[in-house]
């Protein structure tokens, strides 16, 4: 089902609950899940960089303040410019001192980003380019 732009979650949830109760006697199947989705689409669509590859991923491990919970953030098509160029991790480690990377990390920590269980992430643990078949 679709809903008008600007409809709040609370209104959608109420309508979904009402619709589910009306549909229940019309089906011999069982309701198991309800999902409310808000979509945003880029207009116009930008062109990807020449040579960009979805499979060339950067992975960022974040941990809660207590280090008890850890979660992973994957960035497809990580730019080569974001990698360390010298030392043991050259070409693999993501340069955490890069301005764009530190800005991304700060944004993730400052926004209400959690792991799938709702635990707030407090700091970065590690970040590197993930090896994938290309």
């Amino acid at each position, binding site marked *: 089902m679709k809903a008008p732009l600007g409809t709040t979650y609370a209104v*959608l949830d109420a309508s979904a609950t009402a619709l589910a109760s009306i549909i229940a006697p019309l089906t011999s199947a069982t309701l198991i899940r309800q999902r409310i989705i808000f979509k945003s*689409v880029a207009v116009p*669509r930008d062109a990807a960089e020449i040579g*960009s590859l979805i499979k060339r991923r950067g992975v960022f491990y974040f941990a809660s303040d207590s280090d008890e919970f850890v979660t992973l953030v994957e960035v497809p098509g990580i730019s080569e410019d974001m990698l360390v160029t010298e030392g043991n991790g050259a070409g693999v480690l993501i340069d955490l001192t890069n301005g764009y990377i530190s800005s991304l990390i700060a944004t993730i920590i400052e926004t*209400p980003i959690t792991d799938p269980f709702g635990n707030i992430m407090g700091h970065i643990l590690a970040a590197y380019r993930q090896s994938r078949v290309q």
Partner: protein
Amino acid sequence: MALVNQPAGKLTIHYRDASGSKGSTDFHFPYATLTSVVVTAADLLSAALNAVSDCAIDGYTISYTKTEDTPAAPAAGSRVEEKGKFIYRTANARTSLFTIPAIVDTVLEQNGAVDLGNALIIALNSAVVGGDLVFCAADGSDLTAILDAYQVFTRTTKNQRP
């Protein structure tokens, strides 16, 4: 028996590379977070991610999921491939449809049409058209009247085998 929300909602950022292949980044946020707050965060994250990825960002989706904690057993022999297809007229003279999986036989006529005079179907149409529910067509136009409703069968996938 109740629908209970998951601990966190999900924000998915969508990417496209030079070959047209698609990818995504998933984030989670506390379920009680207002959508407007998540939209602000998504805009910030999209901009920050755009600066570190060679891919183009096509948009994002924000989803809130509830699951039934103790689902009832479905009726014996029920098949989700057997659907009731409901087609509605819209305020801008187009049509919009939705389907109900495993439609019960008691609301069907012998020729496969949905019995629009059935009390359960009248209640459904009243709710959909009458303004009790917020739903509309994909272009935002109101659903104004039922146009047609009938039984359809979709292809059975491997996972749908009995």
